[in-house]
């Protein structure tokens, strides 16, 4: 079972949300960010190279040009490997846990699995970003030392900060899924 919705993020880019239901106890939300556009890549590269060429005409040292090439390549690699996120996945397995995966453009995946016993609550948080209020989904973790305390707040879909509607729906799904597990009362606010 699979369906797809599309939203816009806070910068106005398009985001696609895929929902997959593997079984009543396991479902997956997959948020795809826009791909790296050729235009921005070209413009950045051209800017760096033009600046390097300007310096080269001033100093007449060919080291500058090779340095510019290296900087561009390394910058691109670093951007793809550490910054640019293609897809973020939220996998909810009933009575087992929640798994957050972000896959980078270079193919690197970083995964965090949160056991259900550690989840205290799932909330929608609001924050002020520039001139507007944005809402995002957060998972609160239990503090093992203090039964009422919160040890950590883990934002979900952190890297594609999304618009209002998306977290709302995701939260509904998340909570309905979690509610199957009677031990953990989950409320949204």
């Amino acid at each position, binding site marked *: 079972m699979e369906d797809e919705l599309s939203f816009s993020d806070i910068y106005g880019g398009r985001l696609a949300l895929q929902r997959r239901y593997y079984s009543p*106890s396991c479902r997956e939300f997959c948020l795809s960010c826009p791909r790296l556009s050729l235009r921005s890549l070209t413009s950045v590269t051209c800017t760096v190279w033009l600046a390097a060429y300007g310096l080269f005409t001033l100093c007449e040292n060919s080291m500058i040009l090779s340095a510019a090439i290296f900087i561009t390549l390394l910058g691109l690699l670093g951007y793809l490997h550490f910054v640019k996120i293609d897809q973020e996945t939220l996998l909810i397995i009933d009575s*087992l846990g929640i798994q957050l995966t972000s896959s980078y453009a270079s193919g690197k995946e970083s995964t965090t699995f949160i056991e259900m016993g550690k989840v205290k609550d799932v909330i929608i948080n609001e924050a002020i970003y520039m001139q507007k209020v944005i809402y995002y989904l957060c998972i609160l973790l239990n503090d093992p030392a203090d039964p009422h305390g919160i040890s950590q707040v883990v934002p979900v879909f952190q890297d594609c900060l999304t618009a209002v509607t998306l977290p709302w729906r995701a939260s509904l799904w998340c909570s309905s899924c979690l509610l199957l597990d009677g031990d953990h009362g989950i409320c949204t606010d």
Partner: protein
Amino acid sequence: MVLKAFFPTCCASADSGLLIGRWVPEQSSAVVLAVVHFPFIPIQVKELLAQVQQASQVGVAVLGTWCHRRQEPEESLGHFLEGLGAIFSHEPWLQLCRERDSKFWSCKATYQQVPTSPGAHSEDQVMLIFYDQRKVLLSQLHPPAALPDHQAGDATASACGLAAVFDTVSRSKALFRSDQFDEGLVRLSHWQSEGVEASILVELAKQASGPVCLLLACLLSFISAASTCRVFKLWPLSFIWSKLSTCEQLRHRLEQLTLIFSTQKAENPSQLMRKANMLVSVLLDVALGLALLSWLHRKDRIGQLADALVPVADRVAEELQHLLQWLMGAPAGLKMNRALDQVLGRFFLYHIHLWISYIHLMSPFIERILWHVGLSACLGLTVALSILSDIIALLTFHIYCFYVYGARLYCLKICGLSSLWRLFRGKKWNVLRQRVDSCSYDLDQLFIGTLLFTVLVFLLPTTALYYLVFTLLRLLVVTVQGLIHLLVDLINSLPLYALGLRLCRPYRLAAGVKFRVLEHEAGRPLRLLMQINPLPYNRVVHTYRLPSCGCHPKHSWGSLCRKLFFGELIYPWRQRGDKQD
């Protein structure tokens, strides 16, 4: 709650039989550890389980049946398997079945007892989770779960969630000891059933490590006893020891070696890891030191170095002389007081002259000294680097002296000026109230104070310039020494073994697990693959970083600038000395 069956991937191709494992009722999950093949005698299986339970303190039981249909479906086997539930009663009774030519398995969990509420589920939803038994057995979870209490037996299952699975697998080593070539009465299938994994080299090393450790520990205790001898604690010597970074490094190295070769067994994995990290870092250090030694002794490089050293020191002194002569003129059109300028310049020139004669007095012995110092590289690169740092400190002693003179003079001037400025305004510093109060001075006090104030104000630029120049030189030397110390600290504290483990066996250091949803067909149980999520490199470094000898500068940039402005002395080694005190 959904029933979760953790199934080892190595058993997927095993013959039909019984599932052996542990049932964790809190999470309604069944951890399958092995499969017992037909034929078997139920009493013997029960005996084996009792043995394992005694050895590992884990409640191992028969969880259900495993049916692998290779040929045509055998009706009789199915009935037989159902019948087994009567012999090994377990609640719930799992029935796993793998069809021929099919990726999808069927799984049933039946409750034989009458459910408490009639009409409720007698057959529950089941989720199959595959795991790699070897990786789960060998991996170490981070952060470590609450220390498993070995006496409490089954009660330890309170370790939350997946830690319980890891704990169960790692503690049932007794079950994995027999392989299929054993003449045992019960045939099992698990990750070692194709043959027990072991290495002759590792076993030999384990055997040899005991006596070697004992021998080396004795030797080290002799050395440390000698180093704590009373003679070394007399006043001038102890002062020198505390200031030389070589001694610091040697002491640190001795502590490390004592810890490595201590005859006590490591109690927990983190301690073991620490020992291994230290051993690797010492070995790498010594290897680098030996490489340096061989490089130095090839082609008489020490002689060249010694020949180069004296001219370099001469050159430095010459440059300093030029600098002083420049300062004694009117540098950059500054309004310097000529008389004071001349006095200071001559004083420093005489100092440099003394220094040069000292170096020339030393020059015949330098090669021999360097040769002996070079030998110390076999103790490790860090020792050699520390000695280098000390040599730099000794060779730039004149710069240090200049800095101290300049700073003292400047500090005197600044303090005098600040208090005389208060006198000039008719105020004074009230020590009891920590504030500036007004005060009426006598006429002669006022006169002398103002006279001194005027003199100090006009002499300040000269002193400040000398102070500035020598402070910059001093900071240069301190920066070089700081870089060397940073390198030494890096070698000392980097957990190389843990990093190597992370690089070659990523599953050994686990940050947790991750799940992958396998191909799914409606009406069949959901299948997940559990993989080990390796610990990120930065967390490896953070968790296993070895304690270094710790001479990080403690003051911030702001306080450093403040100290520089007020002319207080800056020692790179002061913090370390304080720490020991």
